């Protein structure tokens, strides 16, 4: 180790949670050092890929329609997690999400005006103008104006926990390794979704076929160090948000555009040419988070969405054009699927489609009868060429394994105690709230709320230590 640095508050990470913590601590008067392991251009972790935040509100606001009360938000969370959440923490996040929008606006984040319409998320979710990278840029500018010192390409690789105190964080920048001593430390370094070896450890060889939708920099090094040094882990390493995305997407960082939104308007078959799940169970935005896992359970971790001409223009245009053919048999051949099996699947499906009035804007009455599994909405016969096929792979968004925290963001230790000057925010503690399942926009809510709490607590602790010194 060649050199040492000091800071009052050290923030590890450069995404939403880290920035909220750094800004809050700096506004409270602390001298803050922030470590971002990515280069400046790729700063902002997964937060740079986001577009909205889910917020409770009792009345319509500038950016949210109608009302979204605490209990409804909590019910929604219970539904997706199967009742397995830390109620105190979850309710705390939900309640504190209400003033979050004003806090964000006051620091320069801009939102899109709320849009009407039933299909829109604008009752529950506020959309960032320009998306998450614009938000991240705004926060970095704000932090720099407040005097936060930012180090890029500076990776925290280890930390020391002595009697519950984080005495030192080891950092690597370029070829140099140095120690940072801080009065308080906030860990906001995301999950371990970019760490292919760790994913393989959790999922087995199937993980080799996963694509990572966001940043390649969330290697989980600090998470691993925390657990190794005695922090209490929470969550199952295979639990994560995973969507079914286009198999032709890049291995990392493909982001939002790699999604395939026509699943609910067609059918999905696996490598054997057989359907395996109700494609029309619910609106796609409510379902996309389970399809990653569904595809991960198929042989070879791959599947294909098949549609005919009718849905074109009724779903978000995909980045990768569908493979196109004039008959189902030709399409199956072009996709490299067993032709007879696919033809039979489509024939059986077409025969099972019941008459009904198709409307992709509501849970319509178009369904199949006599299939296993059924398709329960938006079931139209697939009979109008040209036909299109889109290959699907599991796309990992972020992992839920994290460290257990108190409602004040303090890291809990395996020995039952609390870390004295160590706080966690964002993905690295999201598992306290999300045991499984996902609610669109809650990732940013957890990061914003807990980033602020961690920043406030860290600044307070640092101020106390300053006075004592």
């Amino acid at each position: 180790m060649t050199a040492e640095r000091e800071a009052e508050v050290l923030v590890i990470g450069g995404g939403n949670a880290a920035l909220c913590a750094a800004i809050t601590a700096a506004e409270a008067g602390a001298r803050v050092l922030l470590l971002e392991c990515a280069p400046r251009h790729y700063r902002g972790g997964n937060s740079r890929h986001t577009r909205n935040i889910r917020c409770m509100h009792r009345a319509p606001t500038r950016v949210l329609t109608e009302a979204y009360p605490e209990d409804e938000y909590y019910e929604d969370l219970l539904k997706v997690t199967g009742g397995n959440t830390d109620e105190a923490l979850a309710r705390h996040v939900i309640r504190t999400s209400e003033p979050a929008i004003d806090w964000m606006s006051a620091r320069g984040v801009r939102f899109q005006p709320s849009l009407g319409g039933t299909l829109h998320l604008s009752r529950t979710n506020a959309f960032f103008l320009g998306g998450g990278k614009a938000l991240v840029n705004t926060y970095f500018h704000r932090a720099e104006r407040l005097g936060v010192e930012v180090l890029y390409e500076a990776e925290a690789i280890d930390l020391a926990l002595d009697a519950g105190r984080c005495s030192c964080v080891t950092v690597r920048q370029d070829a140099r390794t140095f120690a940072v001593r801080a009065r308080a430390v906030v860990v906001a370094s995301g999950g371990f979704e970019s760490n292919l070896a760790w994913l393989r450890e959790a999922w087995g060889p199937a993980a080799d076929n996963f694509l990572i939708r966001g940043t390649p920099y969330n290697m989980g090094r600090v998470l691993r160090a925390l657990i190794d040094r005695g922090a209490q882990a929470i969550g199952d390493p295979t639990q994560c948000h995973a969507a079914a995305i286009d198999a032709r997407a890049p291995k990392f960082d493909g982001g939002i555009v790699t999604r395939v939104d026509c699943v609910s308007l067609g059918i999905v078959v696996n490598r054997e040419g057989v359907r395996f799940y109700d494609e029309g169970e619910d609106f796609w935005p409510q379902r996309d988070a389970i399809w990653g896992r569904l595809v991960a359970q198929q042989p070879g971790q791959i599947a294909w969405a098949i549609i005919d001409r009718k849905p074109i223009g009724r779903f978000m245009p995909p980045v990768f054009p569908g493979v196109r053919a004039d008959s189902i048999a030709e399409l199956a051949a072009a996709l490299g699927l067993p032709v007879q099996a696919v033809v039979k699947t489509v024939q059986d499906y077409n025969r099972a489609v019941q008459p009904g009035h198709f409307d992709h804007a509501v849970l319509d009455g178009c369904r199949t009868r006599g299939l296993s599994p059924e398709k329960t909405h938006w079931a139209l016969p697939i009979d109008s060429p040209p036909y299109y096929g889109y290959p699907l792979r599991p796309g990992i968004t972020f992992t839920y394994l994290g460290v257990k925290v108190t409602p004040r963001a303090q890291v809990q230790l395996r020995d039952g105690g609390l870390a004295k000057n160590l706080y966690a925010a964002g993905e690295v503690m999201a598992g306290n709230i999300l045991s499984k399942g996902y609610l669109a926009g809650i990732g940013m809510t957890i990061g914003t709320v807990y980033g602020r709490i961690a920043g406030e607590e860290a600044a307070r602790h640092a101020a106390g230590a300053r006075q004592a010194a």
Partner: protein
Amino acid sequence: MSAPSGDLHQEGARQMGICNSCRYCEGYCAVFPAMERRLAFERAELEYLANRCHGCNECYYACQYAPPHEFAISLPKMLGEVRAASWRSHAWPAPLARSFERGGLVAALALAFGLAAILALAAALGGGGASLLAARAGGDFYAVIPHGVMAGLFGAVGVFVLAALVAGLLSFWRASGEALAGFARAHALAGALKDALSLKYLDGNGAVGCTYPGERSSQARRWFHHLSFYGFLLCFAATVTGTVYHYGFGWVAPYGYASLPVLLGTAGGLGLIAGPAGLAWLKLRRDPATANPEQTGMDTAFLALLVLASLSGLALLAWRETAAMALLLCAHLGVVLALFLVLPCGRFVHGVYRFAALAKYALEQRRPGLDPGRE
């Protein structure tokens, strides 16, 4: 999805395809709502979208796919290139447009200088040599160049410029797939006028301005553009007032320092110095990843002529009673003539094509769009 390609419109289709799947930037500007009505981006669509982009760079700094990301998205650069190509391909007459493609600044300055020299020569021959350097009490321009000659010259150039602008506009309009009659639709014109006159999209979404020339929001470009735009309008108003004075009331120039044409012209001239100079200064400091170097020459030429026209006009006003007047007058008229001649093939046309793009959107909004049933 293919790798970035050399072909401008193929590359444009690639980038717009990614944006159309993403749409994070839809709140920034007029490009995105028009993009969302489409699934394919051929040349006509790209030219239309490009002329709705005002190069504010917001979407570049907000883009998670900006280079060095492998998707390499830079709409300000790509749309800027498509836009410049669309101006070139629709400009009339084509040879004139081509002469400004390369070395725009040098060509424009040479044109201005040449015209000024011709005027000076003509005045000298007409007035008998020595009189060119004589001071004239009251600063009588028409003693140097007779009013009839001046009015005839500018009238002819004015008609040419107008014809050229209209020709370009119509060519662009037809290529965008709209019928000629569409332009005359009341709601198209009204919608376009409203958006154009309020400079709606230059406000950068409220109070913060836009990310130009760098990543931090700034109002600078908006203010410099306002100075240029209103400066231009004021100079135009000064000319119109002068014309009304001359023909309506028989009041002949030069007018007093406190007269309306001089006040309007002075205010406009100051705007046309500060505005374009500021815009050029910002342009130099802009991120190269957002810029289209091919267009820089043409833009700089136009900005330089605007500044020169104002400077020479103000100098003429200040020294109109001295021996320098005749030469200053020739220089000023030469620059203004050159400015007019490059209007149809320079940066100025952005106003014209943008107006057409706004009118097209007003028509389009009344047609049914796509419904992707999004979040």
